[in-house]
């Protein structure tokens, strides 16, 4: 190998000297275990990162300081020294009463925010008594079919005093309305309440696939919530642009980063086109990322995300408002990485993933429970998950200093590489006309499917190790834990309340409100006021979504 390399810098020359003098003899003696070392995204990881990898990186321009553009090192000048991340465990199962009890339990254990998981019929806009809901009520989350359920869900929880995140997308505007009406009944001031609506419909078409309406009217509903919140609920985050589900569906870390941020840009585009001033609504856009197994890759992803967002807001939208430029995000550990086999091992996986989120500077965090590959978590499993965060926060010392890995050759090189790979995806998507068009063409969907398949094959070839699954297997371990079982009687309970609600309400008021909603949708007005009116009249979720379906139609996924 006597090829002559161009020596471009003293750093490169020094690296090559090391390779020649120290590395080469060592490799001769002890060869490395593998030819290629890969991240969990199957990207190659180099043997060593050194100053030679950061020649293109300009510290002042690219790394900077915490609280300063481009926010690579975090959005807060004091990191976690001023305020720790919010410990926000996602919870929801069975009836609103049972979930309400879990919420109160978690708050009593020191949790600092709430996050609601809804069941599948609710996510799809069906009431508990819909034939399509059979077998699914209360299974993957809590069942909510009307304001009456929502009142039970937040009974005794003052919405002015706690921030609530709601994981709901296709019918998100209805849930914003229900939340606001419950708050109003509690006497809370809309101007003071805060919380987050996931409301990220783009990633539904890309990955999670809980959609109702076609893409464009669905985007209109999202834009309606932006406009409404900007005017009436200024502290509320009307969207949480989510990479989480994109990653769970099989995307690589880079794809998660690229598609999520490009989704974010798409929402800003739609808001701007609807006439909203950028610096009034963009500061309330928040993000949601996955924390997967590959520790450094994840940390670099979060750092790259902040940098990409601030640069995109500056360069694409001309913003210089610091609140617009700063990306805030929530993180959840990777459900897909949890194994049924030897489930207690999941506690360790979650701890390491959560640590990556913290070292990446997350604003809030959900840690998965060890039993979640099998079922929704038991109280005990959910408690260990919360304790994991508390141990990271208060025992390990990682929150004492800001961005402790900043300046690491590896982390900075990986941050640069992920930013540049994400920008390559942006270019492709921009060339298609934007994210809505890219989704209509099936582009992100196909990219993710390909990655999922490649990863599965790598696992089956043993190139990616999953402890307890393709290495260090044992028999019979999965039965060792007790899991939560959701009773089939939940549906009966929910149907009964829905029936009572229908009997008690003013049918004429419901019909009028639903008609007004249809008109608003048809005439392209903001649908939020009519949705709130329908919710106040106790129109059910299914009825409201059905009224909108009358106007918008339904989405049918093409075969990609």
């Amino acid at each position, binding site marked *: 190998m006597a090829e002559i390399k161009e020596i471009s810098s003293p750093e490169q020359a020094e690296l090559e000297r090391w390779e020649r003098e120290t590395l080469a003899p060592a490799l001769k003696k002890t060869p490395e275990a593998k030819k290629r070392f890969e991240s969990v995204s199957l990207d190659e990881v180099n043997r060593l990162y050194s100053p030679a990898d950061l020649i293109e990186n300009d510290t002042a321009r690219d790394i900077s300081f915490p609280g300063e553009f481009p926010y690579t090192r975090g959005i807060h000048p004091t990191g976690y020294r001023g305020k720790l991340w919010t410990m926000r465990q996602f919870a929801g199962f069975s009836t609103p009463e049972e979930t309400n009890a879990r919420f109160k339990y978690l708050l009593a254990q020191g949790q600092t925010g709430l996050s609601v998981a809804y069941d599948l019929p609710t996510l799809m806009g069906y009431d508990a008594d819909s034939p399509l809901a059979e*077998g699914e009520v209360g*299974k*993957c989350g809590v069942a909510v079919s009307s304001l009456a359920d929502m009142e039970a869900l937040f009974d005794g929880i003052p919405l002015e005093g706690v921030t609530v995140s709601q994981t709901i997308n296709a019918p998100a505007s209805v849930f914003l309305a229900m939340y606001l009406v419950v708050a109003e009944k509690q006497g809370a001031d809309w101007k003071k309440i805060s919380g987050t609506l996931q409301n990220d419909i783009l990633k539904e078409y890309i990955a999670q696939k*809980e959609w109702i309406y076609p893409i464009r009217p669905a985007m209109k509903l999202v834009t309606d919530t932006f406009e409404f919140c900007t005017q009436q609920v200024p502290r509320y985050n009307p969207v949480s642009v989510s990479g989480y589900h994109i990653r769970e569906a099989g995307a690589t870390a880079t794809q998660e980063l690229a598609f999520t941020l490009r989704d974010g840009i798409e929402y800003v585009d739609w808001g701007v086109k609807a006439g909203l001033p950028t610096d009034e609504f963009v500061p309330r856009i928040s993000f949601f990322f996955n924390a997967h197994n590959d520790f450094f890759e994840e940390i670099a992803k979060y750092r790259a995300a902040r940098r990409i967002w601030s640069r995109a807001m500056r360069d694409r939208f001309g913003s210089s408002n610091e609140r617009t430029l700063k990306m805030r995000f929530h993180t959840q550990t990777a459900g897909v990485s949890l194994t049924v086999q030897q489930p207690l091992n999941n506690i360790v996986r979650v701890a390491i993933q959560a640590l990556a989120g913290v070292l990446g500077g997350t604003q809030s965090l959900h840690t998965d429970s060890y039993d979640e590959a099998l079922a929704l978590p038991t109280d005990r499993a959910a408690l260990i998950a919360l304790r994991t965060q508390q141990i990271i926060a208060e025992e390990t010392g990682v929150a004492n200093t800001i961005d402790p890995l900043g300046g690491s050759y590896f982390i900075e090189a990986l941050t640069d590489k992920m930013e540049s790979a994400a920008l390559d995806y942006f270019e492709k998507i921009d060339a298609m006309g934007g994210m809505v068009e890219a989704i209509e063409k099936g582009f992100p969907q196909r990219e993710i499917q390909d990655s999922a398949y490649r990863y599965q094959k790598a696992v089956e070839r043993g190139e990616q190790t999953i402890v307890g699954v*393709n290495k260090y297997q044992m028999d019979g371990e999965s039965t060792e834990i007790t899991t939560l079982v959701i009773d089939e009687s939940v549906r009966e309970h929910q149907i009964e309340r829905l029936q009572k609600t229908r009997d008690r309400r003013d049918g004429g008021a419901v019909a009028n409100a639903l008609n007004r909603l249809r008109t608003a949708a048809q005439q392209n007005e903001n649908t939020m006021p009519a949705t709130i009116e329908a919710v106040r009249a106790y129109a059910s979720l299914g009825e409201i979504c059905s009224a909108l379906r009358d106007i918008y139609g339904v989405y049918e996924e093409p075969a990609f």
Partner: protein
Amino acid sequence: MTETKIRVLVAKPGLDGHDRGAKVIARALRDAGMEVIYTGLRQTPEMIAAAALQEDVDAVGVSILSGAHNTLCPRIVQLLRDQGMNDCLVLVGGIVPQEDIPKLKELGVAGIFLPGTSTEDIVTFLRANVKPRE
């Protein structure tokens, strides 16, 4: 020696949209030389049985992660039997608690594949259990 390809319907019943597994399996079976038809999301047991009949498949692979397996699987098996598809295998992949497995098998589910299963195992199972056509 007949060289007919094994025909499999990969189906995703219920409201759940998590189709990563279904799509990976569909592709793996295709790569193994089988004919695969994927139903798409949110198919009712009736739609799945009708597709199985129309496509004349040897096996139906059902992907369920939502906990609705006890409601959906027995119905799919019954509908297939009702339309005379007695040899059509029903396979379930996804999250199925251990205690539900014997009951599902008793009701006629041929194979249950839990998270962590290799796609190779499913290919092997199908090759071993699909009845050769007359």
